[in-house]
């Protein structure tokens, strides 16, 4: 498989590092508007050609798969050109700036018989996948409710709230938080399916260039309910996923490796909290060590991206079902769209 990448910034490094390790995948070219950035990425990852114009790259390289890792406001044009050039597209989240653009992209993909995969990386982290395994095996029971809360300080210099350069995502409804909605929506979708109704609350606590820094939502899904949140003001940074089933509860921090289950256990009922607490303590200690060790090696919190890309390339090679289908992308973005505030604040 011949891969190519457009937009050689921060997240591109994760894509390229992963692609280098995938069997049967060659990264044939990288493209960036800045020639120095494109050439440095090519040199760093041993890629034989680099471009500053994506159309020349598509024409000359004819890639099988194009990774679009630019700021979200440019995704639509780049992904559409790539689909029209006959390539499958892996696009960073959010896939497009508007829902209408997404609809058009999915239509183009269908017409061309190509796949459009949005990076729902956290769905493929080890913890959510382990919870899904227990749900599928029946031991968890049916999911009744899922909570996802991201606490992340995004006020730092050089990021979303940089007072010198307006971040491209600030032009989207919801501002910087719009960049995180696909994570929240894809995890809700994984556990409770497509949404029927959603109600969101957007708020601003601190003075900054961000239109909003707090977000909460309640969602009714086809298989259960979800409570989603993003907090730029709560510290420390954490990515909490809590899944409630008819027999078990699961709790995970996706920025770390922590995953604990609380469920039925043998023995007298009054002692359940005691033994449950001991077991949870053991699991947290093990996870603390694993979190420390993974700091030295591998993709860290991006483990899900690596897993998603591995499964995607496998599916594209042997024709098996994709890990993220067009239907998933559509349903996740429909939820993300329902969560967005009505107006764009300046």
């Amino acid at each position: 498989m011949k891969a190519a990448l457009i937009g050689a910034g921060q997240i591109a490094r994760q894509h390229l590092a992963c692609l280098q390790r995938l069997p049967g995948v060659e990264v044939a070219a990288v493209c960036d508007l800045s020639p120095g950035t494109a050439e440095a990425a090519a040199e760093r990852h041993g890629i034989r050609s680099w471009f500053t114009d994506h159309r020349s790259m598509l024409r000359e390289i004819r890639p099988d798969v194009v990774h679009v890792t630019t700021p979200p406001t440019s995704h639509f044009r780049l992904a559409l050109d790539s689909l029209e050039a006959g390539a499958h597209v892996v696009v960073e989240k959010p896939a497009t700036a508007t829902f209408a653009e997404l609809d058009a992209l999915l239509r183009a993909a269908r017409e061309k018989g190509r796949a459009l995969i949005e990076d729902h990386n956290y769905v493929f982290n080890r913890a959510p996948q382990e919870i899904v395994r227990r749900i599928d095996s029946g031991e968890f029971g049916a999911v009744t409710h899922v909570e996802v809360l991201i606490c992340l300080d995004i006020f730092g210099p050089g990021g979303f709230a940089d007072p010198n350069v307006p971040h491209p995502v600030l032009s989207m409804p919801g501002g910087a938080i719009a960049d995180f909605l696909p994570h929240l929506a894809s995890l809700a979708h994984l556990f409770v399916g497509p949404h029927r109704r959603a109600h969101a609350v957007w708020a601003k606590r601190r003075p900054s260039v961000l239109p909003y820094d707090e977000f909460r939502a309640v969602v009714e899904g086809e298989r259960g309910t979800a409570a989603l949140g993003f907090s730029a003001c709560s510290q420390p940074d954490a990515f909490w996923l809590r899944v409630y089933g008819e027999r078990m509860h699961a709790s995970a921090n996706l920025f770390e490796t922590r995953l604990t289950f609380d469920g039925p256990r043998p023995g007298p009922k009054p002692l359940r909290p005691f033994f449950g607490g001991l077991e949870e303590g053991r699991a947290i200690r093990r996870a603390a060590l694993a979190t420390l060790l993974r700091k030295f090696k591998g993709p860290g919190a991006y483990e899900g991206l690596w897993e998603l890309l591995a499964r995607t390339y496998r599916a594209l090679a042997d024709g098996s079902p994709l890990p993220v289908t067009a239907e998933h992308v559509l349903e996740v973005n429909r939820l993300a769209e329902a969560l967005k505030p009505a107006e764009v604040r300046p």
Partner: protein
Amino acid sequence: MRALVTGAGGFLGRHVVAALLARGHRVRAMVRPAARLEGLGWPASPGLSVGPGGPGVEGSVGPGGPGVEGSAGPGGPGVEGVEVVRADLRAARDLAPAFEGVDVLVHLAAAVSGGEDLQFAAAVAGTERLLGAMATTPCRRLVLASSFAVYDVGAIRGGVHDESAPLHRAPELYGRDGYTIAKLWQERVTRRLAEQHGWDLTVLRPGFIWGRDHAYLSALGQRLGRHHLVIGPLTRLPLTHVENCADVFAQAAEDPRARGQTFNVVDGRGERIWTFLGDYQRGTGERGLRIPVPYRPALWAIRLAYATVFRRATKVPTVLIPNRFESRLRPLRFENRRLREVLGWKPPLDYRQCLARTYGPPRPAAVEGLAQPS
């Protein structure tokens, strides 16, 4: 002569602006859109504002007078105000107006903190934008602030670190920190564009720039709470006091002998780590023990730990990676011979005066308080 100084609000930049003024030149200072101008040490007057949507004139361009933007000090008699251009090189669309009437570009802008990609975008993509704009103007002269970081210190043979030392190369380069990668690529991109357009380029590579509020250096060893592990206490540091360093930039901008040259910027052979750290502790009143550790055994210990424990790891604390440890702490002899021989440069301030400027009572921010050119 009129100079455009990028990164003018930075630690080095504010002193370079002052040094150029002290030599009687006119200065247009490019600062970030949200930069505060108080305390920069020179009188500022409003100038251009180059936003992501293109340039917009913020106010009249002229000597400090009524409507001075954030006037930072009394412009003495005969001192013209500094025109301020507000732009961020990562986003500004059209930077050409900033070059109007400019004879020399002194390019200092880079990000010294933040993630690897932020540093790269600021230094490399920012330089491409800036020089792309310069190519559309008559300005043909530029001075680039590079860094000692571009040298592959571990590959130096003979123990003398001068301009002939080897630079980092791929793939070894990409195991380095973000600042090193960004500065090396910034220099590469600048040299290519200078060659392509036939510009007169001077590259200055300063060692450790120090001064008030910037006197604690990574080469001082490893902090342990308030104590210090001094690795190689007798090693000399490639130091340049910010006012001395700024003086080199000002001279390079005006001196035709600097054209086409590359210079390492150090004040001299440098102080020993032990002495410099002692002066730092006395100057700042910080208490704590200086614990001497010989360099060689420390390097062996780190190499052993790396070979046995961390070899397969991809992310290891900087000080535990042997080649980064060497870059920071390897004892070498530092030379500024080329600077002396080609430009006849002598540091205006000696070490004692530098200590007084760094730790003594603050001087009033004014041009007359600057280091005088040699």
